[in-house]
């Protein structure tokens, strides 16, 4: 069971992170993929601040855990999780995000922003690349893990399942997939057109161990990360985290219009108020 003090620490970080996300979105004059940012906020805090062995002062350390954001449109969410961990400066992100020549682009670029493990943004490619990292680690007898965060909509791409099949076949126990299972794509809800269920069974059928959890429950996130099998496990692991797109902001939650959007000053204030109320446990259910 997760240490309550650690749960509290991470919850506070996630709270701060949500506010930082909203403030950045409010300060930027273009659109931000805020819906899917808010749905994976707790997971990224769990990873960067608890589950992964990473050191912002030694970003090339061979022993670091590797993280790939396959749903690259959530770049800003990763930037802020990393910023809270000491990688980057928040003001710098706000000042330059999405602008010409910025290191902090709408999709993460490894060459422009050291600390980012892999350039992504074209969906469906991350898992195969993660499989490559995992093969390399195993062959070199390195002890780190490879984590790959995917959107559930993204897993409509065939390449994801080709990679999943490979990882299962080659028993890559050092590979951990994480699914931000918010049951929304860009323009629809899961089930409107494509039906992903029975989702966990699909991964099991490809020879993965599956852990299902509430992706907004920090205790469950910590437990899932603490209880990952050893890297010698016979199967890769996927954490299927049930989440809410737009989590914490009443007018964004489960609203297809907020896959990506721009925030007016008024909406920014309302969103911040929602997040504060949500954190204090005062917000009525959406």
């Amino acid at each position: 069971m997760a240490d309550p003090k650690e749960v509290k620490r991470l919850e506070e970080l996630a709270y701060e992170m949500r506010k930082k996300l909203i403030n950045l979105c409010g300060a930027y004059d273009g659109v931000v993929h805020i819906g899917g940012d808010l749905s994976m906020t707790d997971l990224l805090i769990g990873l960067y601040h608890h589950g992964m062995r990473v050191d912002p002062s030694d970003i090339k350390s061979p022993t670091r855990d590797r993280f790939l954001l396959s749903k690259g449109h959530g770049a800003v969410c990763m930037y802020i999780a990393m910023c809270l961990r000491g990688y980057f400066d928040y003001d710098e992100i706000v000042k330059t995000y999405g602008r010409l020549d910025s290191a902090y682009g709408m999709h993460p670029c490894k060459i422009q922003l050291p600390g980012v493990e892999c350039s992504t943004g074209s969906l469906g490619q991350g898992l195969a690349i993660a499989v490559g990292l995992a093969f390399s680690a195993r062959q070199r007898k390195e002890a780190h893990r490879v984590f790959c965060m995917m959107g559930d909509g993204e897993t409509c791409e065939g390449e994801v399942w080709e990679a999943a099949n490979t990882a299962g076949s080659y028993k890559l126990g050092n590979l951990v997939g994480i699914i931000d299972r918010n049951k929304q794509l860009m323009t629809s809800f899961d089930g409107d057109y494509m039906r992903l269920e029975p989702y966990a069974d699909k991964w099991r059928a490809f020879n993965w161990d599956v852990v299902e959890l509430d992706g907004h429950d920090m205790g469950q996130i910590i437990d899932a990360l603490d209880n990952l099998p050893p890297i010698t496990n016979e199967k890769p692991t996927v954490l299927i985290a049930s989440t809410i797109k737009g989590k914490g902001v009443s007018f964004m939650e489960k609203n297809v219009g907020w896959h990506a959007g721009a925030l007016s000053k008024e909406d920014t204030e309302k969103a911040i108020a929602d997040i504060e109320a949500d954190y204090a446990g005062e917000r009525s259910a959406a």
Partner: protein
Amino acid sequence: MKMTFNFGSFLSARSVVGETLHELGQKHNNVWALTADTGGALATFKKDFPDRFIDTGVAEQNCAGIAAGLALEGNIPFIAGMIPFMTMRACEQNRTAICYQDLPVRFIGTGGGLTSGGGSTHNAMEDISIMKSLVNMTVLSIGDPNMIRDIMILSMDYPHPLYIRLAQGKKDRMLYEPGTRTYKIGEGITARDGKDATIIAHGEMVYVALEAAKTLAAEGIEVRVIDMYSIKPLNKNLLLKAVKETRNIVVLEDHLMEGGLASVIADAFVDGNIYPENFKRLGIPQVFAGFGSGEELRKKYGYDDTATVAVIKQMLK
């Protein structure tokens, strides 16, 4: 659809695509709409013809394959999507499932060139090069948001695969008053006449070319502007006439300079033994262009109106 026409003002090409597809769906029961989770503008089509609407989720290859199957049965599938994923993820399906069988699939892609703002994963700077190299594929690039309507309508009688590159798709500049021109595959438009040089452009760069021509006119240089919306097949007569009458040719495009319209034109020059006095191309150099708005990036990489003016002045010195 009634609207006032104002040269240079904005309209969403995607919304025109949505309306036109709905119209076509009503008239022809073999018209289908397909998308890989990017069909925001297809709401009315999917409402009225749900049995002819397919959203595959984020799965562009699948989308192309299904379109091929539909077309084999005599249907006319329109795929709406974002250019890089439509042209690159599904490239082999486009070639082998669709072009090899010469199937009448219509690809309508948004985010042409560097207009998307999403950085190098989302920039579309190779699409013309890729799509034009596919045998049987026709390639159009359309900037004017009203023009797409006419093109979609005329495509109903076109029995081959057709790729249509749009500009950003959300905010596109109107160039031609609806109903005042007839468009045809294999044609081009002389958007402005002139005798000193010709700028050949496509997509949203036609507007940029017209701006450059305006600036040059104020200095007494008369530049012709051709909107070469049909890139494959190319209107060689229009090209030849421009070489004969204006001698100096500048190609301006929101695409890698290598492999785009400039390359198509260079091929035509080589094949036809045509020698303009001057021939220059402006576009994206061999770089991953990165983040920024289309306008900012055009400026950075030297193919905006200012750069065009400078090149033409230098050429005519």
